[in-house]
């Protein structure tokens, strides 16, 4: 009895470790690849150097693309967070039947296959001349980030005791102030985590950007995609390492904030 359970326990742990390894290995090898001194993607790298990081920082086009990506991500998040918050608040408090449809509609960007989202947005933008523009990218990424904000804020509102807000309002505060001063601080971790998810998803977004970014407004991901088509070189690995590190740090911030709440 004990032997069997010990053996099965061991097998189970081994399986978990193997799966975690499976998840980790490609990420792990990208790091040494980014320090490779070979012109081609190779693992293990024949030698080490910082040339690909230098190639990135020394290249105006890459830096422009990075700037574009960061700007778009920031603006898209700034757009998606209040819009998503308001929508989540409305859906939480309203009894209108329309809200059910709204809930489904706001989740659509996550449900519809991204290629269809991409060609749809591309088609609209091509007609109104928003292709290869910054506002175009910002709005599209904001749309893609909305579900994350809505989901996170909805979860936060669900766990929030709304009587507090009601009390503040019955004491004479108008709705806006009561939301800002009572509700928002208490569900801040949810809002922040939704915003962070929206930000990261914008940074990593590849397919829609492939269709609608261009010219002066290339995102990092689109440039990576087109560069990989043209010249498969380890600059991509260097950029990826930096992007992952950025996302990772942001998540740590979120966790830190959540810890503070608890």
């Amino acid at each position: 009895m004990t032997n069997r359970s010990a053996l099965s326990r061991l097998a189970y742990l081994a399986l978990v470790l193997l799966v975690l390894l499976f998840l980790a290995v490609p990420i792990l090898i990208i790091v040494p690849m980014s320090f490779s001194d070979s012109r081609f993607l190779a693992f293990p790298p024949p030698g080490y150097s910082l040339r690909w990081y230098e190639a990135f920082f020394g290249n105006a086009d890459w830096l422009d693309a990075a700037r574009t990506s960061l700007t778009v991500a920031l603006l898209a998040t700034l757009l998606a967070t209040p819009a998503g918050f308001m929508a989540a608040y409305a859906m939480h408090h309203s009894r209108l039947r329309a809200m059910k449809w709204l809930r489904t509609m706001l989740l659509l960007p996550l449900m519809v296959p991204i290629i269809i989202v991409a060609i749809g947005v591309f088609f609209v933008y091509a007609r109104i001349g928003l292709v290869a523009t910054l506002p175009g990218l910002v709005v599209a990424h904001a749309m893609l980030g909305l579900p994350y904000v809505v989901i996170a804020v909805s979860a936060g509102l669900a766990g929030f005791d709304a009587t507090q807000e009601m009390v503040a309002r019955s004491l004479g505060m108008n709705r806006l102030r009561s939301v800002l001063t009572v509700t928002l601080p208490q569900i801040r971790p949810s809002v922040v985590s939704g915003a962070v998810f929206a930000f990261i998803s914008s940074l990593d977004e590849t397919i829609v950007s492939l269709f609608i970014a261009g010219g002066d407004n290339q995102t990092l991901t689109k440039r990576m995609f087109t560069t990989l088509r043209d010249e498969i070189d380890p600059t991509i690995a260097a950029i990826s390492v930096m992007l992952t590190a950025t996302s990772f740090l942001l998540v740590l911030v979120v966790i830190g904030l959540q810890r503070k709440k608890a």
Partner: protein
Amino acid sequence: MQACAPTPPPATPSRRHARREDRLMLALAAPAALVVLLLLVLPMAWLFAQSFYDGGFTLQHYRRIFTERIYFDTFALTFRISVATTLLALLLGYPVAYAAARLPQRWRLVVLGLVLVPFWTSVLVRAYAWLILLQRTGVVNKGLQAAGLIDSPLPLVHNELGTMIGTLHILLPFMILPLYATMQKIPHDLLMAGSSLGGSPAHVFRRVFLPLSLPGIVAGCTMVFVLCLGFYITPELLGGGKTIMVSMVVSRNVELYNQWGAASAVSVVLLACVFAIFALIGRFLPLERVVAPR
């Protein structure tokens, strides 16, 4: 945590107030709704219209999809890969989610971290990493040959297998996270009660834990399956040009042939499948629990 039911404002509930409240709520939801409406719903409606158009109303795009062999093959291949990936993701992801849910805080963060970090590495780069690992002169083959397990390199990439490995890698977190979220909520006391009533660990697992984790299983499988249906970059890079999935057909029709009619028709069929799945699941589970399970 139960939310309080929405209560009317402190003044006497009157129809005027209720209507003002409704209008306020609609106004609050308007910006978000407008963006999604204009950039997603409208284009999809246009795609739908476009799929019936080729100089005039026509069913030829759909006829081609349902009569030409290659479309059937493409959908069949896509479904086959999606089903296989979903099952594998479930089999491999469940133990990991279980471990994460039951481990003490510090280890839990490590496991979740390992699951999330690949999540935020560019899909492109991950696909290329797998290419480097799996190719004939890659580390995996070299290792297997060095260990004497094989004589000549195995074709691990540039085919369906490579596509599945890459896809599995990318979608595994989408299985593990919903599973974990649901498992985390299963009260430990229930399991204790089960075993204190005489059930063996296996029995408790099968009759208590597993059913309670079902919403997470459904959510995870749905997300993985639907995402896999729409996968584009991974089959493109790891499939060797031979593994053609539906989204690649859509993109090629747009990019290469600029045939919006054909692209739209394929998109509509794909969307119909996706919506059918969500509608089916929606009968058993609220949509939001699927996309963001709690």
